[in-house]
């Protein structure tokens, strides 16, 4: 692998072999953040099991290498977690798990946790709506 100094080996690995890319048919929750005009956009799909655990995560990302790696890492971190646990994943944790992100990419590309949270919120609000 040709390495670029600004990206750690883990970032490069997740960028080049992203986990959980794709879509879930009939997802339980969908979260979209970012905006292609700014250069980064992520869509997260989740499937939630009966015990409020994340069973499956898929994502699609438009953005730089960091954005793709972040999405991949978040998806890995989320699978198997309860919704509450997943909600508490922070940007900093993601960056740390990736072996660090370039300073200038911390804000713009590190949106994965936000997208996941949006998907969870989407799931919760749909569920709340169903209950009513």
């Amino acid at each position: 692998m040709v390495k670029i100094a600004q990206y750690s080996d883990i970032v490069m690995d997740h960028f080049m072999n992203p986990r959980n890319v794709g879509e879930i048919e009939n997802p339980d929750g969908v979260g979209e953040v970012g905006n292609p005009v700014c250069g980064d956009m992520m869509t997260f799909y989740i499937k939630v099991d009966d015990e409020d655990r994340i069973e499956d995560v898929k994502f699609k990302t438009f953005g730089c290498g960091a954005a793709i790696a972040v999405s991949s890492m978040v998806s890995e971190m989320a699978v198997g977690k309860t919704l509450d646990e997943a909600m508490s994943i922070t940007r900093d944790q993601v960056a740390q798990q990736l072996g660090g992100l370039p300073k200038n990419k911390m804000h713009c590309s590190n949106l994965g946790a936000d997208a996941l949270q949006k998907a969870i919120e989407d799931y919760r609000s749909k569920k709340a709506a169903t209950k009513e």
Partner: protein
Amino acid sequence: MPEVYLDHYAATPVLDEVVEAMQPYLSEQFGNPSSLHSRGDAARIAVDEARELVAGLLGAEPDEIIFTSGGTEANNLAVKGIAFAARKKGNHVVVSAVEHFSVLHAARTLEKFGFDVTEVGVDGYGMVDPEEVRAAITTDTVLVSVMAANGEIGTIQPVKEIALIAAEKGVPFHTDAVAAAGYIPLGVNDIGASAVSIASDLLYGPKGAGALWVKKGQRLMPLLDGGVQEGGRRGGTENVPGIVGMGKAAELAARDLEGRAEALRGMSAALIGRLPEAIPRLKVTGHPERRLPWNASFAVEFIEGEGMLLFLDQKGIAVSSGSACTSRALKGSHVLSACDIPAEVAQGSLLFSFGIGNSLEDVDYVLETLPPIVERLRQMSPLYDKFIKQGGG
């Protein structure tokens, strides 16, 4: 793995002949051109020879050449130097919207000193309309600066026409020829300019050297005050090896201009012709005909440039992109935006800048390597997803 360097706009390799010419001035011939003894003499003679060679490339007089540390300094010196020297005459400058930041931001600095700046727009191909320049000139205008050609999209500007208009109005005309010099013929008198900037590092010369040609009689406030080097117009001990290298590079560029241009044009035309067939929803940016021979620029829809760069790098291909993520300032390209290319499309911009070491095989390698990368990234892209679902593709 093949090494296919297609980022000559960012940096050209330094030719062996150029390195050889520089070598003595890095070691034995370390004199200061201002020194009166024989060691200083050797350095001064070398700088003077380089000055003639650079003047030769531009069809100019040697004593009209001011050596600088690069294209950025040349542009800053031209824009600020001409405007400040004329600030009692007027406080208005005209630039194009697709100038390099070293012109555009220099103009913004002028604004802090009470100048007004008019940015003339471009058409979808990145071309300035000379008549818009005419319309922008007022009685307060002390400088018009429009680049000879834009490196990002390759578009060659109608500088002769603009120079003529500026001359009619009695306004000095500067052109940034950093991306163009050595690739298209650029006689300063033929253009009718007052000042022309060039840089060594786009000419197979060393980094750290550039030059501003300034027409005899044109007033200029120095940017670097100090000694009387460069006729008092640019202080500082001369970067002798850099200048010598630039001289050699200019000599070779002048000698080989046509041959180089033809070879480069062959490669870029091949890529521009064939890449759209290999990748759907790919836009060629810049002008279809009036373009720099080395430039092949595109925008790939639905994906972002950095990812392409990284994957291409894995395959040994070096290119650049005007995407926000790949710019250190994290801002999208002002050039593509001036061409009215939507921001999300501009994110997928790719610039292949060919060099004299490339061949048509490199084009083949790109044509083979890039489409699957684009496909892979598109498969990850939520934008592509939407496009497909909306019946595109």
